[in-house]
């Protein structure tokens, strides 16, 4: 690994002293194989200990470190800086209230997730052993279960920005994941919840969510299937 000099612009916001967010530039030297998270750690540990950001697993599993880097929503822990050259512009996710620096208030995001009942609903009695699912049934929901709830998709969705009541792609994807789960009996309840002017119909297949998803989940495609399911169910 070789050392390289980079310029990092970070959108800072301290609620106790700042009226509005401001940019702060750091000129630092890091390994050329660093990730964005390595860069933030370097700044936090060696240059400015007041920088606030979320991090946890460093393995793109926990979904804590989603942020906007050079205009794209990414997970800081899995994104190498060589994707962006020598200049990095790091901002918090759009569409959420900033708590401090790169930390945003994700409470509304998780409240919306709760609304679609993100758990298995069973009417039937439990089987003696495990539930049996065919490969085809698993295939239908397999990719959608990979969501790590990082909120990168919802923050990238233009329909979410002006409308805080819109459920957003992550919650709708979770609804898809249970509606199409062969083991689940709560489809009718969830379809009723997503069939709302602030539900699945606010999705206009813009594809930003798919582009932002660090797990490369085909969110837009699944939401289209969900729309079709709602219509089929209503007819």
């Amino acid at each position: 690994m070789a050392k390289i000099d980079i310029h990092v612009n970070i959108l800072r916001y301290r609620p106790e002293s700042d009226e509005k967010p401001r940019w702060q530039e750091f000129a630092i030297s890091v390994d050329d194989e660093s990730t964005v998270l390595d860069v933030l750690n370097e700044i936090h540990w060696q240059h400015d200990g007041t920088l606030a950001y979320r991090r946890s697993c460093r393995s793109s599993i926990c979904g804590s470190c989603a942020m906007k880097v050079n205009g794209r929503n990414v997970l800081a822990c899995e994104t190498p800086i060589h994707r962006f050259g020598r200049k990095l512009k790091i901002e918090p996710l759009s569409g959420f209230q900033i708590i401090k620096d790169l930390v945003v208030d994700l409470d509304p995001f998780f409240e919306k997730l709760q609304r679609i009942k993100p758990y298995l609903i069973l009417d039937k009695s439990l089987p003696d052993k495990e539930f049996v699912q065919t490969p085809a049934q698993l295939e239908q929901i397999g990719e959608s279960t990979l969501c790590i709830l990082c909120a990168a998709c919802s923050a990238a969705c233009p329909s979410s920005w002006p409308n805080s009541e819109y459920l957003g792609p992550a919650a709708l994807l979770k609804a898809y994941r249970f509606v199409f789960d062969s083991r689940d009996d709560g489809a009718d309840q969830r379809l009723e919840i997503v069939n709302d002017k602030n539900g699945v119909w606010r999705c206009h297949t813009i594809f930003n969510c798919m582009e932002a998803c660090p797990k490369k989940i085909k969110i837009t495609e699944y939401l289209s299937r969900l729309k079709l399911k709602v219509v089929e169910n209503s007819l």
Partner: protein
Amino acid sequence: MEKNFKQSSRSGAVAWLLQRISAVILFVLLLFHFLTYHFLTRGRSVDYQQVLERSQSWWFPLLQFAFLLTALYHGLNGVWSVLEDYTASRGWRLVWFSLLLTVGLALLFVGTLTIIKLYTLKVA
């Protein structure tokens, strides 16, 4: 919170379905339009006289009126769905909806007049 997410007759399901149906109809009508106006010309190049002759076939007003209605619905429904995204207040929504309805009716009127005019124009 829960009350905002109950099913309603204005959920958007019907508008979504009609937008897809009108898109398919538009595609078929557009194909028919191109075929009849630009390709089935019996070897002649497309000129004013030929367009006028075709415009006076019995199917012309039917096709064009279907085209006009579908295109107006599809276009205005699309614009309305975008405006709904960015307009939170009921008052402004009513203003936008009224404006779109007025534009739609005006274009329907002008379009219908044009179709009738073309159908009844005397071929020289």
